[in-house]
């Protein structure tokens, strides 16, 4: 139809519909509702629901790759994949590494992003410039940023040149003790801008009268920050904790590229990296799926604890 529709901003009265016409209208809306949502529903079924069930299925079977269409028996093995994962030193090490990562990354992220957001919130000049600069690493591809960090943190890289005699040996990314902390530092730096903006939004909801009251009571800046700002953004803090933990659990690109596949000697391997090595490189997808399930359970437990202890206090 070629009719152009000009929206009428105010319509005084929508004529009341009578019974049958109303029913027909409802039926058509219902049909269109399902029709318009159908592509999305199919997508969710094919990309999320089915693979999710498939992951659980694979994790309790001895699943292996065959040529497409070949029908083979993939025997049920119960909890064997899980038990194997829990006694595999490489898997346990990767979970330990993830622990090291989270212990460094999560607190650092919360503290730095809250402090920078609080400072940024008071700034009048150059606000847009600061916002852009904090945000750039977050928006840029890890692969590109890893390139610069490799350059910066290599044996004779700029960081070591500046540190001079204090430079660690072996250098950062090939040092068994420092590889994982270096990765944690990289991810903190890369993601920080997002959390700063999240806190910045939360800070807008902290009432100025609270700060005024604190000032009247003679509170110092630090006391105001500790007693007004920190409690005022508590729900944002819980969100930051959760998101940082989930992002950390998904760690793959950085250990793969920054430390050459989780090196040295697996000192910086992550669970997802081990899943890739086991599931796809070595053709044991059932085993990898079991590691994935364990990882998700662990993440959920941590998230639950964070929510419980960081959440509603008042």
């Amino acid at each position, binding site marked *: 139809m070629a009719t152009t529709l000009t929206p009428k901003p105010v319509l005084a009265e929508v004529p009341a519909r009578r019974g049958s016409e109303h029913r027909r209208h409802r039926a058509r809306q219902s049909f269109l509702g399902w029709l318009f949502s159908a*592509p999305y529903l199919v997508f969710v079924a094919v990309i999320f629901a089915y693979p999710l069930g498939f992951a659980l299925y694979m994790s309790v079977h001895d699943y292996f*790759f065959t040529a*497409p269409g070949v029908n083979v028996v993939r025997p049920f093995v119960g909890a064997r994949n899980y038990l194997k994962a829990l006694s595999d030193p490489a898997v346990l090490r990767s979970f330990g590494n993830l622990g090291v990562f989270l212990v460094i990354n999560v607190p650092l992220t919360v503290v730095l992003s809250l402090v*920078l957001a609080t400072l940024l919130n008071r700034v009048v000049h150059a606000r847009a410039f600061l916002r852009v600069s*904090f945000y750039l690493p977050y928006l840029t591809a890890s692969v590109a940023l890893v390139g*610069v960090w490799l350059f910066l943190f290599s044996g004779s890289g*700029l960081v070591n*040149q500046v540190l001079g005699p204090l430079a660690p040996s072996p250098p950062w990314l090939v040092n068994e003790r420092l590889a994982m902390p270096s990765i944690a530092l990289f991810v903190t730096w890369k993601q920080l801008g997002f959390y700063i*903006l999240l806190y910045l939004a939360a800070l807008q909801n902290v009432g100025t009268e609270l700060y005024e009251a604190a000032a009247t009571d003679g509170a110092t800046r630090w006391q105001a920050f500790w007693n007004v700002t920190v409690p005022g953004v508590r729900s944002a803090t819980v969100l930051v904790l959760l998101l940082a933990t989930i992002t950390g659990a998904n760690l793959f690109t950085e250990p793969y590229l920054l430390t050459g596949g989780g090196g040295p000697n697996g000192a910086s391997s992550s669970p997802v990296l081990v899943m890739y090595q086991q599931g796809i490189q070595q053709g044991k997808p059932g085993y990898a799926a079991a590691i994935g399930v364990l990882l998700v359970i662990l993440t959920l437990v941590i998230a639950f604890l964070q929510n419980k202890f960081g959440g509603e206090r008042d």
Partner: protein
Amino acid sequence: MAKLGSWLRGIVLGVGALAFLFPFYYMVVGSLQREVDPSVAGAFPNPANLTGDNYVNINARLNLLQGIANSGIFAAGVIIGTVVFGALAGYALAVLQWRGRGGVFALALLVQVVPFQLLMVPLYVLIARDYGLADNYLGIMLPFIINSTAVIIFRQYFLQLPKSLFEAARIDGASEWQVLTRIALPLIRPALVTVVLITFIGPWNEFLWPFLITKRANMQPLAVSLANYISNVANSTANPFGAMLAGAVVLAGPVVVLFIVFQRWFVASEIGSGVKG
């Protein structure tokens, strides 16, 4: 005292900004060095040591144009899928009255908590092995083709439009499709810009999935081919860091430029789950 405080604040923020921006600056400087110079003096461009050769070298190694084209096709497919199907679903959830809408909305929220690490292996088995879509654009796009966040954003924007507008159009005899395309979508045009920008960055930066699903070099998005260069072949190039950084500049460039130009369209609350890598 107050003066001192504001100085201190300026210094902390300045140092922060430097820490965030310096690697970008250093990326560009390093990509232009003829001889790799990691010394402190090397952080300043030295006219005697400037060259564009690194860009030529990296292009010879991994065919930048092909990589850019693959990344572009990947991103374009995801943007089209997300805008078309996301707007349809968002409209159904916000405007149409039907019994399943509450459930579908809950589903769109639920989907976002499903972690990709759990889906990675089964998706690989399904898409690469069963559907035979390895080294195929559709296979690269499939897991991202509709962004659930976008569905929720579209719903949010459509909800903000006055209901009377839709009623009026329907009384004038417009079909639901016409209401969507001629009234609802034009009214949320600004939001559309935000959705497109955010949706672009996700696939452009994405590494893990396209890395799993593409083995042939001529199908790989730029992020993947650059990563392969970093992990495999870097050692066999005369100036490996220079070439690597030149590739990094090409990969980071479009996003940085887009962000600076369209800054005000980036709404913080909505970028969260849209951008991952």
